[in-house]
């Protein structure tokens, strides 16, 4: 499969969040502002690429019976490293994402791709899969956070641009997350049906 085709699958037809419906917890939790959405998306992408590569490398060594334990150990290792690196070198992002970084460990997209793809394919293919699935996740987070930040806080990009001053606060609360996710998934399904 060419990179372009994979990218299209990751972003649209097989989008991890909007079509495969995995990794919904961080999607709902972190999309209260665009900066957070992009930060979470890219951090998870970095972990996904690293873990996919390593798991593909080790796919013949890791025994089937203990594969989940091995995957989780590797993923947790990468997440902790990224957490420490963010704290040390990008403290502002670490402050706003603080709570969510450890959650990447249990992000089902990463374990899901390790199990469904990286453990059965070559290193190159797994790296590409990590990139496209990560970008698909980031794309979904950006869509969500644009809608929620605009309606819920009346701003775009963390208060840089104020659109209106009487926002509907519910949109940045958990309920707004569900509302937005539902609407975006509905639109996505409609567009995908049309495309078939």
């Amino acid at each position, binding site marked *: 499969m060419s990179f372009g085709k994979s990218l299209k699958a990751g972003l649209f037809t097989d989008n991890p969040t909007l079509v495969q419906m995995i990794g919904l917890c961080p999607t709902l939790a972190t999309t*209260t*502002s665009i900066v*957070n959405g992009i930060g979470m998306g890219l951090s998870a992408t970095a972990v996904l690429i690293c873990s996919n590569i390593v798991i593909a490398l*080790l796919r013949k*060594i*890791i*025994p089937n*019976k*203990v594969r989940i*334990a*091995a995957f989780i*150990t*590797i993923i*947790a*290792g990468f997440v*902790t*490293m990224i957490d*420490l*690196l963010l*704290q*040390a*070198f990008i*403290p502002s992002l670490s*402050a*706003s994402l*603080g*709570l969510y970084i450890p959650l990447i460990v249990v992000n089902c997209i990463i374990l899901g791709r390790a199990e469904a793809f990286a453990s059965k394919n070559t290193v190159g293919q797994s790296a590409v899969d990590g990139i496209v699935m990560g970008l698909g996740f980031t794309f979904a987070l950006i869509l969500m956070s644009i809608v929620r930040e605009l309606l*819920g*806080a009346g701003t775009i990009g963390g208060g840089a641009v104020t659109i209106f001053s009487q*926002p509907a*606060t519910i949109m*940045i*609360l958990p309920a707004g997350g569900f509302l937005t996710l539902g609407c975006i998934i509905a639109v996505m399904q409609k567009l995908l049906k049309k495309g078939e």
Partner: protein
Amino acid sequence: MAVKQKNEFVQLGGILCAITLVVSLCLGAVNAITVDPIAVQNKLKTENALAQVMEADSEEIEVPEGTTVTTDSGTSVEIFSAYKMTKDGQDAGYCVEVGPTGFGGAVDTMVGISTDGKITGISVISAASETPGLGARSTEEEFQAQFKDQPADGTVAVEKDGGSIVALTGATITSRAVSEGVNAAVKFAAEQG
């Protein structure tokens, strides 16, 4: 059969052990690189907060980890750190870093208390566990400015509780927590003499 099964266990355990070992080694390496920058970042944050609440020289007071103060209204607040402040050789009061419990966790706040019984200012260092756009707005200047010159007698409270602090819209719990944090800081400073 028994021997074969035993071998399999050894093999599985061995591989898992090897993976864990390698991951731990990598983690150790990353930790070695980042431990100093992280300490610098944390120190910088505290220093900025100190400078914001009181312009004076600070000397850290030893606070045992897990120290808590119970305010008059019965809220238990953890004390993170405390500083004795001096200006031109004169006693200038105390700065106390408190962690009152907000909506989602501790709201890390630095409180300055002058010798003449007033709050010199507060600085919310981190409200990362509060709701973005609501409680997390406690880090904004406008909210914090209200605490300046409040009496340091443990009566700081939001309007709803009979005080004069205007709570953040939709974030009474966070606003209340910060107020209680200020009261706890005052009590802790008073205990220092």
